[in-house]
């Protein structure tokens, strides 16, 4: 009821907005000097690292042991030491990692930063009593300890299994141990009164506004942008109007609305690549999709470029595997399934599927039909699922769509195809591909590879890659994974999203954007590293 109403509201708003975009006033200077003001689509507050805030080290308030060092969104960022003194040092089989700590750093409240804070933050995430939303991402950690050395202090992570991509887990924002007092993370005072070591401190927080002011004692030097104000404005159309009216220096917008700023003087659009993929998992218990030749055929039957052009308004790239071009050498440009309906039809025919009386393929008593579930609140997933069903029908496969939330899908996970999203931690290729492609292991989420299809060779390459420190060896292993996937695909990957932002022109020299994870907002985009802006 509410959703239908709000959808109508959005439509009405969009029409009004579009019709009136032409007659708006020239943008006025909203801010002077060294302040910027942004409109965000996401609720303010919740600044607790234990709940996942700053999980990837991108936050004005906190630092992680490591930070992202981006040269742009075409390639994966490197990791540079932040609260660490230098890059982490692994043992021979990458199961123990030592991180020497930076000395002389203080938190916003004046207390000194030390190893106890790192240990307390990681332990709080791992403590079941915190009910941390990100605990599963750190499940490889068996023990964290800190020790004083002659030159300073070192934190040691002992892992439950060798893990070569562990530096990606060192991006987690570090909170002071004094404030990590146990209990559910959602009830911690850090959510509203965060204390970090970051370039900005939170100076004001109300329901609709958060003000970040520069930390004059920041260990890397105080930032030049002295104040960042973020205003919470959930309605897409309100954000368009108020950015156009000159109230804000920028905001995040869906691609179609961001495009309205192309012709607007004084504004530009920034987009950032992401490893945020969308794809369809194929059901494990449906005879049709259990056939590897069928899965191959379905991959040739989808017109991915059309999905990028229409559903994503051009802001995205086609996805054939979860490995995108941003992974550099590990990405195999040849690992594609060209759009070829005839090939799809002949593969299906070769596998014994022939048209039935109603045009849908049949083989014996089995029908070429399955259901694809998608999260109904996500319009992009809905539209992609619709496009997928249309492409399937063209080759005689009947796809029924069902809008279901996660908890309704889970009990039927073996019977449903699911329009899945991934790429929440893109800075580790292992995290990007391992759970999605590896055959299920005990203790993994049901959503990691719901179809449960894989090959022994693929599993072996994935396992070996996560244990291998040598970059060239890892690269070749990930290429093996993609080559193997081409012969026996387990999903139909569709697209990688791009995130779009409207930005007002300014004289600031901005840092380049970076590859973005699934989550975004004005913490990302052109502002992910606002502390490094100069002019």
């Amino acid at each position: 009821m509410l959703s239908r109403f709000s959808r109508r509201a959005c439509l009405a708003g969009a029409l009004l907005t579009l019709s009136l975009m032409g007659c708006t006033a020239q943008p006025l200077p909203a801010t002077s000097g060294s302040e910027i003001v942004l409109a965000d689509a996401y609720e303010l507050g919740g600044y607790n690292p234990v709940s996942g805030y700053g999980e990837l080290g991108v936050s004005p308030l906190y630092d992680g042991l490591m930070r992202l060092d981006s040269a742009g969104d075409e390639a994966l960022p490197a990791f540079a030491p932040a609260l660490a003194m230098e890059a982490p040092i692994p043992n021979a089989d990458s199961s123990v990692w030592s991180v020497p700590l930076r000395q002389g750093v203080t938190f916003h409240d004046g207390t000194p930063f030390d190893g106890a804070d790192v240990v307390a933050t990681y332990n709080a995430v791992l403590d079941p009593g915190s009910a941390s939303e990100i605990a599963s991402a750190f499940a490889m950690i068996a023990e964290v300890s800190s020790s004083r050395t002659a030159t300073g202090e070192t934190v040691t992570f002992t892992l439950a299994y060798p893990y070569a991509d562990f530096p990606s887990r060192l991006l987690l924002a570090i909170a002071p141990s004094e404030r990590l007092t146990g209990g559910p993370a959602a009830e911690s005072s850090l959510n509203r009164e965060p204390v970090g070591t970051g370039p900005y401190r939170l100076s004001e927080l109300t329901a609709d506004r958060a003000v970040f002011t520069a930390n004059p004692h920041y260990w890397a030097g105080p930032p030049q942008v002295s104040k960042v104000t973020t205003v919470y404005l959930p309605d897409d159309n309100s954000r368009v109007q108020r950015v156009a009216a000159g109230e804000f220096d920028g905001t995040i917008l869906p691609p179609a609305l961001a495009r309205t700023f192309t012709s607007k003087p004084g504004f530009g659009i920034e987009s950032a690549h992401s490893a945020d993929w969308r794809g369809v998992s194929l059901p494990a218990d449906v005879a049709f999709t259990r056939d590897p030749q069928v899965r191959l055929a379905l991959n040739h039957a989808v017109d991915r470029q059309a999905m990028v052009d229409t559903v994503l308004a051009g802001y995205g790239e086609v996805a054939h595997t979860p490995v995108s071009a941003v992974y550099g050498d590990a990405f195999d440009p040849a690992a594609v399934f060209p759009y070829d309906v005839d090939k799809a039809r002949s593969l299906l025919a070769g596998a014994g599927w022939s048209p039935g009386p109603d045009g849908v393929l049949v083989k014996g008593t089995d029908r070429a039909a399955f259901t694809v579930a998608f999260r109904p609140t996500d319009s992009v997933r809905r539209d992609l699922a619709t496009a997928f069903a249309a492409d399937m029908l063209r080759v005689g496969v009947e796809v029924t769509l069902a809008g279901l939330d996660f908890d309704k899908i889970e009990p039927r996970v073996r019977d449903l195809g699911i329009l899945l999203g991934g790429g929440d931690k893109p800075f580790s290729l292992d995290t990007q591909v391992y759970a999605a492609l590896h055959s299920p292991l005990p203790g993994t989420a049901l959503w990691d590879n719901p179809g449960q299809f894989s090959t022994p060779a693929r599993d072996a390459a994935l396992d070996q890659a996560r244990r291998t420190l040598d970059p060239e060896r890892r690269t070749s292993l990930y290429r093996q994974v993609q080559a193997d996937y081409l012969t026996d695909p387990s999903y139909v990957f569709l697209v990688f999203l791009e995130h779009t932002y409207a930005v007002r022109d300014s004289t600031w020299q901005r840092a380049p954007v970076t590859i973005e994870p699934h989550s975004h907002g004005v913490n990302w985009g052109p502002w992910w590293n606002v502390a490094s802006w100069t002019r």
Partner: protein
Amino acid sequence: MERGLLDTLTTVQTAHGSQTPSPDLATARRRRRAREVRGLIGRRIAVALPLLVLISMGLFVLAQASPFDPLVGYLGDRYPLTTPEQRQSMREVLRLDQPWWAGWLAWASDLVSGDLGHSRSYAMPVSAVLAERLPATLLLSAAGLAVALLLSLLGALIAALNPGSVLDRATHALATFLQAVPPFVLALAAVTVGAITLGWFPAGGATPVVGPTTALTTVHHLILPALVLGLSQMPWLLLSLHAEITTALASDPVRAALARGLPWPGVVVGHVLPPALAPLVTLVGVRLPELIVGAALVEEVFAWPGVAAAMVTSARTLDMPLLAILTVASTATVLLGSLLSDLGYLALDPRVRIDD
């Protein structure tokens, strides 16, 4: 004949107006009135308390029966990343696995001891959420109601005093049109005209994006949403006022007053408005729920930082401490509104009796 009628009327009026009751009688009347009022308040409270308890229990029952899993709201996109075992342990920590009555008991006993609990969706104490948002909603509702009363009074008077005129028909057409337009469309239109095209008012929020918040900036931000809320609540007020005023205009006292040659403004203020406004007091009290709902919609479009957004968020994520207190508080507001309007009616019209 004419002389006779006027005489009678004058006599009646004099009798009514100049009859000073003896001090004893007046005191006795006042006492009886006070007793009646106390009785009314007592009875209403006796009904309201069990009603609020039942409504809050019903809310917890519905929440448990609801197809929503609160963990879906809590985890969001991270839901698929967690295993069922991890989710079970989260349920235990967040106390989502207890039966509705246990949850209700915990909430109610905390409430009795003055603790409103902790809001999961806002990650802050419920009392802090309310302290932050309630003033904004009260300000907007009060301003909206004031606008609605003022506009409907003006419109109804103009229309009723000029029956059949262009003004009369225009007022009615406008009222019907406004009643038909959903508040959010009105709100978007107001933003488009008032904030974008003319640029006179801010398009949303309650405080300036940069710079200090003063009384002036608050009024500046309040004008558009209060106007939209007032306009959306105006039609039913205007139409009922129009009916009351028309009735009053046709009443004997008014006809008599006019016949005696009293000036129009005096007649309107002294003879038309008092009887026409009295029912309005009841009407406003009874229609409070509509005002609350209207405020919720207007708050959404104008990004007004009030409790409406909190209500939607808490309902979607089944954030029970926040949702329960907001539900109980809105129910209490409606009950209080109807009590106040009845008391107002008692104060305005000495003829009104309370049925025991």
